[in-house]
């Protein structure tokens, strides 16, 4: 028996996916082809992303997916929680 993924669940997966791609990816999935292009996730294909030096300077990263005839944008901001009791934050 097969069941399809609900769109809410898949959107949640895509929102999480932004943390595992691009610069400072939490988990380096190595999901690029030999030319450095991103591959798909499920039936969603990655159309575009924004993670250049300008984006990195403000901790921003975004992906645009094509999925089921729609464009879905997933993005992340500051993804490193500050370490507690750390008087010397990263420079």
């Amino acid at each position: 028996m097969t069941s399809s993924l609900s769109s809410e669940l898949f959107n949640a997966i895509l929102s999480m996916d932004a943390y595992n791609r691009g610069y400072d990816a939490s988990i380096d999935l190595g999901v690029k082809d030999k030319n450095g292009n991103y591959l798909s996730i499920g039936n969603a294909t990655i159309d575009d992303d924004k993670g250049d030096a300008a984006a990195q300077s403000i901790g921003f990263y975004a992906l645009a997916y094509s999925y089921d005839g729609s464009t879905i944008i997933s993005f992340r901001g500051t993804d490193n929680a500050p370490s507690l009791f750390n008087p010397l934050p990263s420079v």
Partner: protein
Amino acid sequence: MSKKKIFSGALVAIVLVIASGMTPLFAYGSWNYRLTVEVETPEGVKTGSAVRQVSNSASIIKILDLPDVGNPANVKGEAVVVDLGERGVLFALIDDRSYHELYSAFPTKRGASTVWGILHYNYLYLWPWRKAPVSGRYIPKMVMFEDMNDPKSVKLVSANELGEGMRLKSVTATLTMMPVTWGVVDGYLPWLKKLKGGYLHGGFTSKGAPYGLHGGNFKRD
């Protein structure tokens, strides 16, 4: 002993421990290393190098504590330029994961980004002339340009196929107290400053950008 003396003594001890940058609670480190790329050509060995900086901090106390896990390190510096004369100019790029050059050259059994890893590198840095090879997947991505004035003419080159008669001889990391190298890349790529860190094709996003490269792959501050 009076309470005042005990308090003063404790305060001095705390200040000394914090000043040393090492406590059981947190650690901070900043390490410069020279990345050197050597290429064998029919005209002889061509060498390029640049000093890069890796820094990181970590605390033992975390909301979620996983073993051997910490924040990724920060990397500053620029691409290594190897001028091959008539054969062109080779750039060994930099990115957010370039700290692996240092970590792989001088590995530690504890997580490199943990308090213990940072203390390990602080200890190594007491002898800033250590040199070790960078190899395998930690060798930086390398590119050349068909036309140095056209950022879109960039070509990704494999370390194993640099071009006719050329071979990557070595990539090494050497701990150093020298300052981070700036400005060499700008001398070769006059368009880099105008790009302001953006993608090489001049677009807002990576779509259509050659290999997804941007200014931050040549200069990262």
